[in-house]
């Protein structure tokens, strides 16, 4: 039982990271019709920004982390929006989808060529010591990951539901035309979505890299997991992505321990097929209407 709880907590910790990536992905899809197939690379890259800041600028980890988040918001938020998405969305959905796939390739191979093809060790915020909580041994680092991820999610939820700007963003996501008529600065809201997505990806990157090491090819699995988390939870809302992420993290950890670790990466396919067959709108999703 103690083992089981330990696995669940470790699963919740990685799941909370997947949730961060999945929330950004969902927000972007809902607000700007951008299906970002480079989302996995968005989570892979910021860790390297932090590594560069530490190695080249000799910054301590805490400062380097802030630098990484800022650079990510600039590059993966503002530049991604203005250079890639804005010109391409005019050409239609398929060209944009294709371009995000190309962006993914670009970031992945760019990291490999210009930084390193080797997996890089990455510092943790909290030491990896075990603490005893009611007889269950839990790693402090995992608790730290869980804490930061949950705090980020709570802050985001508060922002979206509790502030005027957040509610304007939700209005933009649900119906841009009506939002514009009601005086919501839609363009600015879309930009905020890109910034939030980049920020979430950067935090996810800083949290996940100590666990999986920072490697150029991490994006494949991370991206796939984020997509699956978003789909499992249901695309219509942020809550869905949170539940989806946590669930995928826990199932992933349990399956690796009790079923087979060599087929761990096959889990997304199994989950996807199950959810599509039995609950296509996702666990928390609403059915979407179609119009001609």
């Amino acid at each position, binding site marked *: 039982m103690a083992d089981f709880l330990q696995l669940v907590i470790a699963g919740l910790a990685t799941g909370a990271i997947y949730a961060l990536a999945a929330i950004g992905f969902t927000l972007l899809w809902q607000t700007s019709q951008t299906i970002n197939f480079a989302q996995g690379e968005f989570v892979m890259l910021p860790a390297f920004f932090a590594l560069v800041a530490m190695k080249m600028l000799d910054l301590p980890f805490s400062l380097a982390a802030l630098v990484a988040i800022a650079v990510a918001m600039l590059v993966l938020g503002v530049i991604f929006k203005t250079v890639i998405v804005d010109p391409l969305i005019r*050409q239609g959905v*398929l060209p944009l989808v294709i371009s995000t796939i190309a962006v993914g390739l670009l970031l992945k191979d760019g990291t*490999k060529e210009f930084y390193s093809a080797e997996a890089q060790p990455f510092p943790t915020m909290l030491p990896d010591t075990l603490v005893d909580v009611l007889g269950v041994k839990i790693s402090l680092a995992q608790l730290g990951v869980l804490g930061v991820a949950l705090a980020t999610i709570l802050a985001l939820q508060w922002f979206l539901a509790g502030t005027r700007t957040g509610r304007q963003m939700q209005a933009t996501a649900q119906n841009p035309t009506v939002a514009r008529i009601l005086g919501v600065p839609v363009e600015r809201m879309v930009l905020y979505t890109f910034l939030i997505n980049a920020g979430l990806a950067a935090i996810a990157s800083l949290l996940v890299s100590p666990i999986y090491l920072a490697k150029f090819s991490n994006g494949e699995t991370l991206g796939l997991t984020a997509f699956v988390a978003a789909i499992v939870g249901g695309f219509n809302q942020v809550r869905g992505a949170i539940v989806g992420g946590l669930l995928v993290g826990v199932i992933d950890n349990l399956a690796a321990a009790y079923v087979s670790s060599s087929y761990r990466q096959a889990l997304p*396919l199994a989950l996807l097929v199950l959810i599509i067959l039995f609950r296509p709108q996702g666990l928390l999703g609403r059915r979407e209407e179609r119009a*001609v």
Partner: protein
Amino acid sequence: MSRGLQLALLLIVAAVLVLAPLGLQRYGIYILTLWLVTAVAALGVNLIVGYAGQETLAQAAFLGIGAYTTALLTQAGLPFGLAFLAAGAASFVVGLLIGFPALRVQKHYLAFVTLAFSVFVWLVIRNEEWLTGGVMGIRDIERPTIAGLKLRPAAFFYWFVLAISAVLTFVMWWLVRSPWGRAFTALRENPIRAESIGVDVRSYKLLAFAIGSAYGGFAGALYAPLVEFIDPAPFALGPSLLFLLMVVVGGSGSFLGPFIGAAVAVLLPEWLRFAESYYLLIYALLVIVMMAFCPTGIVGLAKRMLALRRRPAARASAGDTKPLALEEAKP
């Protein structure tokens, strides 16, 4: 272009393709054969992306299914012809199985399911060592023998692949021109309207995906004897993404697109030898620029330029080539 001119052009291209190996070294013939194999797989992707308006991220996985089926069956003593058909059939059936759930829901779900499927196939090939040899792969795959003639020499095998590719190309050409194929265009342009006038959208998309995937299987069946050694690497997710990109670069939804896209994908690494590993970066940049300025690909670009030359007065209407992407109907 008049019909006579088209026919003449086709004959010239056919003649060039048949005679090409006579003027080429062994390696040149290999590249040419690789182009044909890639083009067959790309034809399949084009049916799925260009005609049925779906996205597949698993064509390399189907290539793998075809390649391993062929390698295993021929090494078990079966003739190549049977193995070839089995490769196509296996990919077709697997395509039906994963397409069926994916196409029940909204657009783009096929992309996610094929993405996950890609990872799964790669895992199976790598992990099931008893069957696939794992990372060690399968070596010494024999090239087929026709009527006692061994197709070992590069040129012979090239002609063999050329003949099969020609047949597969003709079948695809007939398919997209048949009433059945025209329904695809209808459902790409407006799926909901197509549905309302009686096109069974879901089964059409499913069949398109399965047939397109079968082309991947056929390409794999030709790929295995071409390279004579297969391991998991060429069937991973990365190559699947490249298949999708090459079709779009060539011009998705146009019949020549896949051939041109395949040529770019096969030749670009050869031309960019000096840039070594940077070629993927250059390719990715090229794709983005292409999508931003000419989403109809190289074929669309060529058409646009021809139109400009032919009627400079009608310049304004040159840009009105049909955009191939579907704008998703907003609720």
